[in-house]
């Protein structure tokens, strides 16, 4: 296949993945509508279902027998939704693979490619978690919703033709630094969404009523999901910043120069460090800590959008264009 055909295929796959994610979004909506309220007892994230006897555990987690009725229908919708999401992620991966083959380099040389990859990481991270913990399928709407919105915004606002990158980006550090940044960002995205949902779920009176709020996983599960993903993302982000500094030393003549991108990456790092501390500090646990995490995600998004599009700095070749 010629390079231009590959580039076109990449663009078509982008539309395909948006369409698939939209279908998955509808299926997640259906699950939320037809499914029943979540069971408290099965809400341990990543818990291995160990129901063997022998040890007398007070308050042991046990798989409660499922009442028949609307549940199965809801579950079926959930399974369909996860399946379609996985298909979408496959097409989404195809976008990047074909783009990379078309330009013969790693497909994260500009903001369009970078943002597309970040969203893919978020989808894959969420799908992986939801496969392990079916209960998390109930938040699919709130992950896929932002994903579809983000992809549409990326497609309309950031689209860049397949093209070679400037000399400064031709370094193996592109693979190391940018991959780590994409991975960290995508994981933080899932974490931030979980914290937003936690804030909604942990409001007083959220348990009452039959609205969607009561169908969300419990506040505990959401809080733990947010924390675990942040714990996973933080070292990756730290590494991304360090790798960026090493690359900057070779490319720009200094390892740290308070370029706007560097400054905001540092701000994000400090905010996530504050979140991890806050979660274990009396008086900050719970909602205040979750707010810190949400601020962290806001900083990450600001760092991607405002810093690239508005301010001028050395990272500006990652700009639209």
């Amino acid at each position: 296949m010629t390079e231009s055909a590959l580039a076109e295929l990449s663009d078509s796959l982008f539309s395909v993945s948006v369409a698939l994610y939209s279908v998955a979004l509808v299926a997640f909506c259906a699950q939320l509508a037809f499914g029943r309220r979540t069971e408290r007892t099965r809400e341990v994230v990543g818990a291995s279902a160990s129901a063997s006897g022998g040890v007398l555990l007070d308050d042991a987690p046990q798989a409660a027998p499922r009442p028949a009725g609307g549940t199965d229908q809801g579950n079926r919708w959930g399974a369909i939704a996860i399946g379609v999401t996985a298909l979408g992620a496959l097409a989404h991966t195809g976008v990047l693979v074909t783009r990379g083959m078309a330009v013969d380099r790693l497909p994260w040389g500009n903001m369009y490619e970078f943002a597309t990859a970040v969203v893919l990481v978020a989808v894959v991270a969420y799908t992986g978690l939801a496969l392990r913990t079916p209960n998390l399928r109930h938040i699919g709407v709130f992950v896929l919703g932002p994903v579809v919105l983000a992809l549409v915004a990326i497609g309309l606002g950031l689209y860049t033709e397949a093209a070679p990158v400037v000399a400064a980006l031709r370094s193996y550090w592109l693979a190391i630094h940018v991959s780590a940044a994409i991975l960290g960002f995508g994981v933080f995205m899932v974490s931030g969404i979980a914290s937003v949902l936690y804030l909604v779920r942990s409001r007083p009176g959220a348990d009452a009523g039959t609205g969607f709020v009561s169908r969300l996983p419990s506040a505990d599960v959401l809080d733990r999901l947010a924390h675990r993903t942040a714990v996973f993302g933080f070292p990756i982000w730290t590494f991304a910043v360090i790798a960026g500094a090493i690359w900057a030393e070779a490319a720009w003549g200094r390892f740290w120069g308070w370029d706007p991108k560097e400054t905001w990456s540092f701000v994000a790092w400090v905010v996530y460090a504050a979140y991890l501390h806050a979660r274990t500090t009396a008086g900050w646990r719970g909602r205040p800590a979750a707010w810190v995490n949400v601020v962290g995600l806001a900083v990450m998004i600001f760092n991607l959008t405002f810093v690239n599009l508005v301010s001028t700095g050395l990272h500006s070749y990652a700009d639209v264009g």
Partner: protein
Amino acid sequence: MLLRWWRRLTAMRTAIILLFLLALAAVPGSLLPQRSLSRNAVTRYFADHPDLAPVLDRLYLFDVFSSPWFAAVYLLLFISLIGCVIPRALEHFRALRTPPPPAPRNLLRLPDSGRLDSPLAPAPALDAVEEELRVRRFRVVRRETARGPELSAEKGYLKETGNLLFHLSLLALLLGLAGGKLWGYEGSILVTEGQGFCNTFQQYDTYSSGPLVDSDDLSSLCVDLDQFRAEYEENLTASSFTADIRYGEPNGEDRATTIGVNDPLRIDGDRVYVTGHGFTPCFTVQIPGGSSFDDVCAPFLPTDQTTLASEGALKLPDLGAGQDDQLAIEGFFAPTGLMQGGLLTSIDPRPLAPQVAIIAYQGYLGLDSGLPQSVYSLDATQIERGRLTEVGAANLSVGETLDLPDGTQVTFSGYKEFAALQYSHDPGQLWVLGSAIALLAGLLGLLLLRRERVFARAEAAADGGGTVLSLASLTRGGGESRPRFTALSDDLRDALATAASRTAPDPEVPSRD
């Protein structure tokens, strides 16, 4: 009183607030132009906001990262960090040498606890548990108490080691950063092909140095630029910049190498970078009456990075005739020139059809007036005063000549390329890198390892046969301790069963309910 303040400063809550302040303090540094990044942008801001800018300047908002208030925030944070980490380090050091603490009185009150029945006697039952825990790399201590034999086990000391390493590395990193700022320096210079420079502050176009740098301490190194090459893709994206250089001690032996983007020259803690490039047009000036200046060149600064359209000036103060007979050429260089509406523009960064548009001036340049002037433009006040007058203008290709009224001939004789080189010395760099790696290692240990205590107490079963083991675990840092405890007790039950079958071939199976 002092102690109370110290406690407050070193409390975690204060640390979180200081972290926030630090994040917040960095923000204006990215929203307002900074002197450290671009002096021109700051000057422009002063021109655009003449009322606001001086106020902001007084608040150090154009030098955020070297401002006293930014320093205050991070110094407070680091004092808080020291106050938090040092006691913890001492405590950790003590904990490393003390055995795990005795089991709590009522094990079954702990959230992760349970009972295991075994046909074994209390001591062998605990033996089996101990062996299983040792396999899992727990440190185990057995104690005899009034309530029966018991066992305390602990693992994951490395988690706290990682925690301390992470925080101490942060301190080390800051020290390295400070050292680099105090003893480091950086100089930039434009070097045209065939020319060179030596590492002294007098030679650099611009330089900055730390307060503890003694200009005598600069390493003596000279660099000559032989050739510069820029390569482009079909769509004119720059694919590589390389400079062939020779370097060595002055009057010493030269060594040749090639440096480029992402590939600086590194020698003994010093680095030489290519940070930009451009063109240096050359002219031959023929004075009526015989004397001629061959191939006098001046670098022109690119005004457009995509087409490398450049502007600059050539000043000839010493033509011989006198102070008011100086000659200057101000002009525009296009690597690939195209006339558009009577104006010369550049359409390609490669020198495919180099052209210049020049204006020639004669008169007094004002170079010895004592006021500094730019190398790249003429002093406009001399033109306004009429001391410097325009005597001719032309668009020239290579080899073409502009004839001035007095008979002087200015010929565009050709061009060379120049490279913008940067010489950097940062003694803190490796220290910072080492700290950063230690920081990451500490962080991984801190986040991935788990600190866990397990307690077990063996009591003879009420019916006389076998043992009832009370088991409990405590995990620092929370997380999902429940499933892990379940898995551990499952394994312990299996271990007990195996041990029982070893000692008694036909074990009594205890009733499970």
